[in-house]
């Protein structure tokens, strides 16, 4: 799985950090998403899919590799 983020679209809700804290973080100054792991291990895929699904700004996209 390849994770991509769009920092311009991100609204800073932090839902992704709550869903998958090993993969996403937020910049403190504006809450914008920071990608910690673009190719997360299999055991995190479910959490990452949850994060992408609940992102209110559609700022996370996933690609199968």
């Amino acid at each position, binding site marked *: 799985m390849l994770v991509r983020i769009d920092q311009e679209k991100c*609204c800073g809700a932090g839902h992704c950090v709550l869903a998958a804290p090993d993969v996403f973080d937020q910049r403190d100054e504006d809450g914008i998403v920071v990608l910690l792991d673009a190719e997360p291990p299999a055991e995190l895929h479910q959490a990452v899919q949850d994060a992408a699904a609940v992102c209110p700004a559609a700022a996370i996209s996933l690609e199968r590799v």
Partner: protein
Amino acid sequence: MTALRDVAVVGAGAAGLHAAEALRRAGYDGRLALIGAEDEPPYDRPPLSKHLLGGEWQPDRLALRGPQALEELRLDLRLGVPAERLDRRERTVRLADGHRVRCDAVIVATGVRPRRLPGADGPVPGAHVLRTLGDALALREELRAGTRLLVVGGGLLGAEAAATAVGLGAEVTWLASAAVPQAAVLGTETAALLAGLHREHGVRIHRGTAAALLRRHGRAAGVRLTDGSELAADTVLMAIGSEPATEWLADSGVPLDDGVVCDAYCAAGPGVWAAGDAASWPDPSTGRHHRLEQRTNATEQAVHAARNLLAGPDGVRQAYQPVPYLWTDQYGLRVQAFGRPGDADRFEVVDGSLADHRFAAVCGRAGLVTGAVGIASARALRHLRAQVAAHSAWPSEAS
């Protein structure tokens, strides 16, 4: 629920899209109709009053999913055709083009439509609302240096539109009935900070309540206020709230009272669920029904409605108890809030300071933490979210 073969999601905005996605993700393999009144595939509304109105983004950036992701959902996608009627006995949704879509279950996600002032019931050149992409493009068309724009309504939408318009060089008057616009949503302290920024950027904030649109030569010319005075303008934006778009359910038997009346599981009777701006459900802390017109709610509630739908009456359903989240962008600042800072009567900054435009504050009411609000302090705010979620006792641990 073994007979579930046809699900119709009515409303193709964020809530509708996320409901459809959640159904597929949870393994629903039957027919899935997604019905939308607008022509565009599901798009995001928050940027309409910000990047889109400001001209920084073009409409294609608003798409919530690309063509391939939509394809993979295997939808019976019906766009540009509003639903007209739900017949629960026949199990069909009748569309404006006469087609009937079968549905063993329906998720109502038809959202809201903006209120208009008396005198602006039909289309009036120069009088605008801001809900759809078409609305935003029409307003953008009129905003240029020197345009006298009157924004009516002291909520977040009016605030964002005023900020964007003044950035485009428009002469903006912002009419709000509250002493401090946006206070009902963000709390007085944060709202006062933003009101100061609006004034610094040249927005004239006028306190009062609009009674009717004024027209001259068939065009909007301003508004008349309830005190009889008038405000003149070239262009008027009505940002005075909205009403659930549920008239298509009028004789369906689905309970309606300021939205679709749901139980704690987003269900509104056998075979009917609702999510997003049009859904009203009991707040677990007060027991009162309420709606949340917030972007994140559309997503979270849609996911809940879809999962509960698939769980069936005997399955494990989950009550919907979100921690509300909203954000607004004005003058380069992003305000973020959890819970209900607007209802609070306690406010305490726990990180940074208002003067620096960088803070996180916890808000409380009746001995409980009820909200958190901040600017440029995402981490501290996220920690406060846990207290909001837990309805922690006031004074907050962080203060």
